C-alpha cells in the first residue's frame, strides 16, 4: 500500500516522522478493525476515505494530528459533504503536474505534526517523498486526488481549526502558492476558453469544472467572494450534521450507538418516526434495536450546552444567559400579550356595548375595505347577507319564549357528557403515559411501532376526535351560535389543557425516576474516579495525578432528564404537525377530490348535499396556534432548538394551509372574527402562557439539574448561576444590595403592598364601571324621553309610564273608572296605544290610532293631570297608582 511507502519516506531520520508513523499505524489498525465490524456501506465508505487520506500525499496538511479522535470525526463529516466534489475534481486534473504538487503539499501536511520543523527539513522530505510517490501512484492516482481535494477544503475551514486547540493552522507558503497558482490557472482557462479550438461540448464541461474549482478554492484560500460562503457552508455542515462530535461526552454519541447514529432512519429517531419512512427502509429494520440518533446530542436540546462559566475573550456566560433567556422569554411574552390586551380594551371601547349596535355595526363595518379580489368579494357579499338574515331571524325570535325547563335540562345533560369526555381523555392519557414508561423499561426490540408511539398517537387522536364530538353534544344546548362557539372553544381548550397537564404530571414521575438513577450513577462515577486517583498515586507514587482520559464517546453518562423532557416536547410538536398535515390532506383534500369527481356519477348532488366540501375552521385553527405556542413556551427551555423547529413548522403549515383553503375548502357560512382585536383569544393565550410558565418555573426553582449535562451541571439549583454571577462578577455593593432585596422582610411588605394596590385599583375600576352603567342608563332614559316627546308632544316619560301601568288595570277592571267621565278614559286609552307603538315595534292597533288622531284636542287637557292624577284619581282607585307611578315596569304583579 501506498501508506507504507510514504511512511518509510517520512520516517527516514526525522523524529516527527516516526511519530507520524506510529500514529499512522495505529490508525490503520483501528480502521481495519472498524471496517471489519461495520457492514454499513456509508460508514465503511467514510472509513475508507479516512484511510486514504492518511496515506495519501496531500495538497494541504492536516493540522490535527494531536487530537486524532476528534479530527477523525471531523473529517468524516466533512468528507461526506465533499466527497462527491472531490471525486469530480480529481478527474479533471492532468496527472503529472498534479503529482508534483501533491507531493509538495504532502510535505506541508507532514510538517503539521511538528510545526517547528524548519523549512529546510521540509524541503528534504519533500524531495524524498516525491520520489516515492512517483514510483507508486500510477495505481491509485484517483484516490490520492480525492484526498487532496478534501483536505484542502477541510484544513482551511474556520470551524475545524477552532476546534483543535493545540496546533494553529497556517499553511506553508509553498502550499498556498501552489494552490494560488492553480486557481489562477483555472481562471485563465476560463478567460481564454473561448479562443480554444475545442468542441463546444468539451468547452462547456471544462468551463464548468474550472469555475467550480475556482469557487471552491478561492474560498478556501480566504480571498474572493467565495470566502464567506465557504465558511458558512462548512459551518452549516458541521452544525447541521451533528456537532455531536465534540470534545465533551454529552455532545458525543455514545459508542454503542455510534455505528447507527448517522443512519437516516435513526437520525431523527429520538422516538419520532417520520411517517412514510418505513416503506423506504429494508424489511426488518423496524424491529432492530434503535437507539437514539444524532439529534439527541445536537444543539436542539438542553444537554448539548456546556457548563463553562465563560466562553471566549468576551467572557460570554453561557449558563447565565441560558437561564436569563429562558426566563426572559416568558417575561417578554407576558408583557406583549398583556399590552395587546390592554390596547384592545382601550380601542374596543367599553365592552358592555355589545348587542347595542348590532345592526349598525353590521351595516357600517362589515365590509372589509382590504378586499381586492373578486372571489373574496363574492364570499363577503354572501356572508354579509347571511349575517343580516340571521340577525333578523334572531330579532324576531327574541320576542317569543320557549320551554325553558327542557332547554335547561338539555344543557345540564350536555355539560355532564362533556365533563365525562374530558375526564375520560385525561385518564386515557395518564394510563397511556404510565404504560409507555413500562414499555421503556422493556427491551425496545420487542416492542411494536404502535407501542413505542402510543402516547403521541393517543394524544393526537383525542385532539382529532373530541372537538367534533363536543360539537355534536353542543347541538343539544341550542345556544346562539356565537355563544355556542365560545363554549365550544372553551371546551376544546379544557381538553387540550387537561391532556397537556396529565402528560406533564406523568412526565414528572419519569423525571423523578431519572433523578434517582442519576444520583446512583453520580455516586458510582465519583467512586470510580476516586479509585482511579488512589490507584494511580499508589502505583506511581506521586500526588499529581493526570486526569483520567476517557474517550468522550465512551464516557458514562447520566440519563439527563432535561433532554428527555425536551425530547418529549419535540415529539409532541412533530406528531402534532404530522396530524395537522394528514388531516388536511385526507380530511380536506381527499374529501374535496372525492366530492368533486364522484359527483359525476352519484345519485345525489355531493357538492350541495351530505358530504359537500369541508369548511375552514377558523376558530379551531386559532386555538391550535395558541396551543402550539403554549407547547413552545413549555418546551423551549429544555429544547432551545424547538423554537427554530416551530418556525419552520409554522412557515410550512402556513403555505400548506393557504393552499388547502384556496383549493379545497368552502368559506364558513357565518364568519367569526378571530382577529387580534379579539380579547377572547388573547385571554386564552394569556391563560396558556401562565399555565405553561408554571411547570417550567417550578423545575427551575426546585429540581436539581443533571450533574453531567446542560449548562447548569454541577449546581444544586439552576438559579445558582445567578447567585454565582452576583457574588463573583458584580461589584461588592451590588451583592449587598441584592442580599437586602431578597430578604424576606423586604419581600413580604412588597408583596403586601402590591396586593393592596391591586385591591385598590380593582375597587376603583368597579366604581368607574358602575358610574359608566349609570350614565348609560341615564342616557337611555334621556333618549326614550326624547323619543316620546317627539312622538307625542304632550306627554313626558313619566306620563307614559303611568299610562302603561294604568292600561291593563283599566282593561281588566273597568268599574273604578266609572267615576271619571268616560270620554276621558277612551282618550287615554287611545293616546296610550299610540305612545306604545314606537317602543314595541309596531304592535299598535290601527283602530286605536285612528281614535287618537281623530281626537287630538281632548287629549291636551290630559297632559297636566298626570301630576295630579298620581294623587287624587289614584286615590279613588285604591292602592294601585302609588307603586305604579314610581316604577313603570312594576305593573305585572298587579294584573
Amino acid at each position, binding site marked *: 500500500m501506498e501508506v507504507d511507502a510514504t511512511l518509510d519516506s517520512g520516517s527516514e531520520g526525522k523524529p516527527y516522522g516516526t511519530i507520524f508513523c506510529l500514529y499512522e499505524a495505529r490508525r490503520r489498525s483501528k480502521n481495519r478493525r472498524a471496517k471489519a465490524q461495520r457492514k454499513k456501506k456509508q460508514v465503511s465508505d467514510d472509513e475508507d476515505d479516512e484511510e486514504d487520506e492518511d496515506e495519501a500525499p496531500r495538497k494541504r496538511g492536516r493540522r490535527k494530528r494531536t487530537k486524532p479522535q476528534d479530527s477523525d470525526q471531523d473529517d468524516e463529516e466533512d468528507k461526506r459533504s465533499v466527497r462527491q466534489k472531490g471525486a469530480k475534481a480529481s478527474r479533471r486534473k492532468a496527472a503529472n503536474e498534479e503529482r508534483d504538487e501533491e507531493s509538495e503539499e504532502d510535505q506541508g501536511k507532514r510538517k503539521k505534526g511538528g510545526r517547528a520543523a524548519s523549512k529546510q527539513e521540509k524541503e528534504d522530505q519533500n524531495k524524498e517523498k516525491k520520489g516515492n510517490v512517483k514510483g507508486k501512484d500510477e495505481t491509485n492516482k484517483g484516490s490520492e486526488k480525492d484526498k487532496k481535494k478534501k483536505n484542502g477544503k477541510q484544513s482551511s475551514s474556520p470551524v475545524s481549526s477552532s476546534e483543535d486547540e493545540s496546533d494553529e493552522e497556517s499553511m506553508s507558503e509553498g502550499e498556498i502558492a501552489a494552490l494560488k497558482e492553480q486557481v489562477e490557472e483555472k481562471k485563465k482557462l476560463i478567460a481564454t476558453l473561448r479562443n480554444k479550438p475545442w468542441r463546444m461540448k468539451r468547452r462547456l464541461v471544462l468551463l464548468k469544472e474550472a469555475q467550480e474549482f475556482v469557487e471552491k478554492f478561492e474560498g478556501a484560500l480566504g480571498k474572493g467572494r467565495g470566502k464567506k460562503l465557504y465558511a458558512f457552508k462548512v459551518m452549516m455542515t458541521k452544525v447541521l450534521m451533528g456537532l455531536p462530535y465534540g470534545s465533551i461526552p454529552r455532545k458525543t454519541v455514545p459508542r454503542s450507538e455510534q455505528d447507527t447514529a448517522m443512519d437516516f432512519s435513526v437520525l431523527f429517531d429520538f422516538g419520532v418516526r417520520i411517517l412514510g419512512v418505513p416503506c423506504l427502509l429494508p424489511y426488518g429494520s423496524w424491529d432492530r434495536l434503535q437507539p437514539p440518533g444524532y439529534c439527541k446530542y445536537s444543539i436542539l436540546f438542553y444537554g448539548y450546552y456546556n457548563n463553562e462559566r465563560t466562553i471566549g475573550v468576551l467572557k460570554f456566560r453561557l449558563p447565565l444567559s441560558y437561564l436569563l433567556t429562558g426566563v426572559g422569554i416568558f417575561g417578554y411574552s407576558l408583557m406583549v400579550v398583556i399590552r395587546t390586551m390592554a390596547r384592545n380594551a382601550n380601542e374596543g371601547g367599553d365592552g358592555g356595548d355589545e348587542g347595542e*349596535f348590532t345592526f*349598525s355595526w353590521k351595516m357600517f363595518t362589515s365590509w*372589509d375595505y382590504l378586499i381586492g379580489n373578486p372571489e373574496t*368579494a363574492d364570499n363577503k357579499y354572501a356572508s354579509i347577507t347571511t349575517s343580516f338574515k340571521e340577525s*333578523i331571524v334572531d330579532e324576531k325570535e327574541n320576542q317569543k319564549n320557549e320551554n325553558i325547563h327542557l332547554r335547561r335540562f338539555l344543557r345540564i345533560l350536555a355539560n355532564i357528557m362533556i365533563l365525562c369526555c374530558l375526564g375520560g381523555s385525561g385518564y386515557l392519557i395518564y394510563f397511556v403515559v404510565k404504560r409507555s414508561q413500562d414499555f421503556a423499561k422493556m427491551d425496545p426490540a420487542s416492542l411494536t411501532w404502535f407501542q413505542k408511539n402510543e402516547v403521541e398517537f393517543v394524544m393526537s387522536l383525542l385532539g382529532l376526535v373530541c372537538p367534533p364530538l363536543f360539537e355534536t353534544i353542543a347541538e343539544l344546548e341550542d345556544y346562539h351560535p356565537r355563544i355556542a362557539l365560545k363554549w365550544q372553544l372553551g371546551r376544546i381548550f379544557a381538553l387540550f389543557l387537561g391532556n397537556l397537564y396529565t402528560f406533564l404530571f406523568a412526565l414528572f414521575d419519569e423525571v423523578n425516576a431519572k433523578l434517582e438513577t442519576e444520583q446512583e450513577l453520580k455516586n458510582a462515577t465519583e467512586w470510580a474516579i476516586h479509585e482511579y486517583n488512589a490507584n494511580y498515586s499508589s502505583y506511581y507514587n506521586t500526588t499529581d495525578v493526570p486526569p483520567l482520559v476517557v474517550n468522550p464517546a465512551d464516557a458514562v453518562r447520566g440519563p439527563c432528564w432535561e433532554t428527555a423532557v425536551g425530547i418529549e416536547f419535540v415529539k409532541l410538536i412533530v406528531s402534532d404537525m404530522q396530524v395537522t398535515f394528514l388531516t388536511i390532506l385526507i380530511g380536506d383534500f381527499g374529501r374535496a377530490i372525492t366530492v368533486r369527481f364522484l359527483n359525476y356519477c352519484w345519485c345525489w348532488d355531493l357538492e350541495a348535499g351530505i358530504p359537500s366540501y369541508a369548511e375552514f375552521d377558523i376558530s379551531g385553527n386559532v386555538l391550535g396556534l395558541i396551543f402550539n405556542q403554549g407547547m413552545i413556551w413549555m418546551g423551549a427551555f429544555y429544547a432551545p432548538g424547538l423554537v427554530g423547529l416551530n418556525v419552520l413548522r409554522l412557515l410550512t403549515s402556513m403555505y400548506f394551509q393557504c393552499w388547502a383553503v384556496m383549493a379545497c375548502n368552502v368559506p364558513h357560512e357565518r364568519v367569526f372574527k378571530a382577529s387580534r*382585536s*379579539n380579547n377572547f383569544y388573547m385571554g386564552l393565550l394569556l391563560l396558556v402562557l401562565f399555565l405553561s410558565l408554571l411547570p417550567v418555573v417550578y423545575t427551575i426553582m426546585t429540581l436539581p439539574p443533571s450533574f453531567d449535562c446542560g449548562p447548569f451541571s454541577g449546581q444544586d439549583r439552576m438559579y445558582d448561576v445567578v447567585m454565582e454571577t452576583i457574588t463573583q462578577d458584580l461589584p461588592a455593593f451590588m451583592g449587598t444590595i441584592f442580599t437586602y432585596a431578597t430578604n424576606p422582610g423586604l419581600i413580604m411588605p412588597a408583596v403586601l403592598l402590591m396586593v393592596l394596590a391591586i385591591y385598590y385599583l380593582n375597587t376603583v375600576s368597579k366604581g368607574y364601571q358602575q358610574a359608566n352603567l349609570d350614565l348609560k342608563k341615564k342616557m337611555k332614559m334621556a333618549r326614550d324621553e326624547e323619543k316620546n316627546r317627539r312622538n307625542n308632544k304632550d306627554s313626558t316619560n313619566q306620563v307614559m309610564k303611568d299610562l302603561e301601568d294604568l292600561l291593563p288595570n283599566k282593561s281588566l277592571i273597568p268599574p273604578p273608572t266609572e267615576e271619571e267621565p268616560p270620554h276621558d278614559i277612551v282618550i287615554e286609552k287611545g293616546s296610550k296605544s299610540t305612545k306604545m307603538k314606537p317602543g314595541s315595534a309596531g304592535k299598535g292597533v290601527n283602530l286605536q290610532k285612528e281614535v287618537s288622531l281623530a281626537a287630538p284636542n281632548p287629549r291636551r287637557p290630559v297632559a297636566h293631570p298626570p301630576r295630579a292624577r298620581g294623587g287624587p284619581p289614584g286615590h279613588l282607585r285604591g292602592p294601585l297608582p302609588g307603586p305604579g307611578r314610581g316604577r313603570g315596569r312594576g305593573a305585572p304583579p298587579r294584573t
Partner: protein
Amino acid sequence: TRKEILRLFYRYRDLAPQLVPLDYTNHPDVKLPYELIGSMPELKDNPFRQRIAEVFSEDGEGNMTLDDFLDMFSVLSEMAPRDLKAYYAFKIYDFNNDDFICKSDLEKTLNKLTRNELTEDEVRMVCEKVIDEADLDNDGRLSLEDFQHMIVRAPDFLSTFHIRI
C-alpha cells in the same frame, strides 16, 4: 412619508401614463376620470368605490387630482386617526350629501352590501333597527355625532376601514 407619497404617485401615474407626466411639479391640474380610479385593484371590488371616489375628489364627481388621490389613501391608511376615519366613513355612507344618513342612504348601503338579495321588508326592518339603535337625537336620521358615537365603539371599524397600498 416621502416614500409612501412617491409610491402613491407612481401608482397614480400607472393608472394613466399618457395623462400624467413624470415631472409633476409643472402640471398640477391633471385629473384622472373616475373610470380609471375605480379600476384600481384596491377599489375595483369595493361596493362603495364610487362613493369613495366622489367623497375624496374635489369636484364631487370622482375625478381625482393627485392631491385628492393622496388624501384618499392617507385617510384609508392605518395611521389615520379614528375620528378622521369616522368622518370620512360618514361622508361615504351619506349618499345624498345632505350631512345626514337618512333611510334612503341606509337602504342604498344595505343593497350595495348584499347585492339586493334581501327582500324589501327585510331591508326596511334593518334600516329601522339601525336608526333605532344609533339615532341619539331622535330625528329619524343619523347625524355625524350619532354616527361617530356608534362607529368608535365598533370593534372592527379600524381593521376594516383601511386600504393597504
